[in-house]
């Protein structure tokens, strides 16, 4: 099984509006590095939502790890979600939890031991340059700092798939490159990476990356 993600003729419609995504078909290879790009409103976030199982398609087939997600019973989906790390476009940090606790959340959900959690979270906090802000609440962090917490939370479990929606929108080019190196390091360890971005400079930063281009809900 080399195709970790497969879409076949996928369509997505919100309510009665015209289709936001139409006839989307593609396959992602395990261990690949992918950029998803396209103008604002093209449907990048919508496509990623299908990937991280926040949304069912209106039609078509979505396959993750070889299994059909459309017909998968609801109560089995958490197991698939735990294999996917997500950096949300709007971060979605939990406002009453510290940076440390937010990053620890996926490990807690998966039932890891406290001692192991503390060590891994502390290491990663240092890596994203937030070693000094361990106990800070999200609202006391800058936009870029919040984004780094969101990224750390997505990669802390070393997921099989990393999905990042505009992960560098709020950081300076130097930090963007540093975060990209983090994704690459993870990718080297075997994680399939999908990054949605407008940032052409960022896309040129990864030599072996593939690019998917969305335009008005269709893949170019």
């Amino acid at each position: 099984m080399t195709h970790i993600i497969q879409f076949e003729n996928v369509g997505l419609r919100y309510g009665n509006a015209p289709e936001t995504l139409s006839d989307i078909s593609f396959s992602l290879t395990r261990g690949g590095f992918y950029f998803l790009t396209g103008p604002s409103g093209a449907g990048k976030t919508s496509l990623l939502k299908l990937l991280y199982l926040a949304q069912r398609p209106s039609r078509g087939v979505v396959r993750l790890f070889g299994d059909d997600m459309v017909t998968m019973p609801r109560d089995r989906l958490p197991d698939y979600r735990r294999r996917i790390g997500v950096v949300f476009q709007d971060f979605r940090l939990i406002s009453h939890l510290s940076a440390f606790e937010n990053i620890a959340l996926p490990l807690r959900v998966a039932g890891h031991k406290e001692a192991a959690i503390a060590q891994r979270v502390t290491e990663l906090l240092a890596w994203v340059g937030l070693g000094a802000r361990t106990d800070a609440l999200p609202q006391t962090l800058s936009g870029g700092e919040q984004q780094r917490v969101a990224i750390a939370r997505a990669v802390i479990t070393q997921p099989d798939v990393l999905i990042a929606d505009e992960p560098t929108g709020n950081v300076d080019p130097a930090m963007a490159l540093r975060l990209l190196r983090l994704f690459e390091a993870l990718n080297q360890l075997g994680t399939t990476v999908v990054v949605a971005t407008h940032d052409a400079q960022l896309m040129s930063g990864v030599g072996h990356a593939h690019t998917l281009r969305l335009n008005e809900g269709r893949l170019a």
Partner: protein
Amino acid sequence: MRLRLPDLPAAEAQLFPEGRMAGPMPWVIAVMIFLTVLAAAMGMGVSRAATGVAADVAGRVTIQLIEANSVRRAKQAQAIERHLAEQAGVENFQRVSAAEVTALLEPWFGKAGLDQDLPVPMLIDVTLRPGAEKALPQLSEAVRALAPSARIEPHGQWLAPLSAAMRSLVWLAGLLVVLMAVASVAIIVLAARSALNTHRATLEVLHLLGASDPQIARLFQRRLGLDALFGAVIGLFAGSLAILLLGYRFAAMGSDLLGSFGIGLAGWLALLAVPVVTAIMAMLAARLTVLAALRHML
């Protein structure tokens, strides 16, 4: 108001900020449980008192002789006493002494008003054996044959209006308990919904990070259950204190009727169950609310 409660296990400890979920819910529950406990105790206490009184007076009868002629009265009394002595259904009987009767009448006639000329009724207290109440009509007839002026009054007859009033009180207390339980459930359901609204963002993130529905439901369940338990225990404590104080007051009155006010061991056990039931209701409400919300997400 911040609450200090035994918190969630370490791994889930900080998912909900301390006290923020709680809001006024535990205190409203405390008030409801306080009132419920009082109503229940009133019902149980009155019910017990009514049973006690009924048992006390069952089979007790007073024979009143209001014959004016004192010689005839004494003869009739002796005849009645002889008859009573022969009856198997009569456990014992006792003539109320003239002094006691005088004392009973004093409030109405005053010390001076009672002289030898004034006919004082003669009273005989009779206690029937249990089950012998059925023979009362025959006894009445026999007594009236011996003394036409005799009146036989079963004590239960005087107490009938009191018994009826007590039964009404017991029903009213039961109704109050039911109404309060319904209101408490409504409060718990509202608290569960408000908790869900407050923490919807947290719930969504946990869901997307791969937390299962039972995992998320358990968090809400524990928090709400503990809050409800906390409120209910405070309410029960305050209610119990009030009951004990009330019982103490009634005992101090020394009244035969109300001196025995109490709810008994079974009553106390029933009251102890109230916080447990409240906590279980809260957990159930939280669980159902959260699971319903999660079912709307993929």
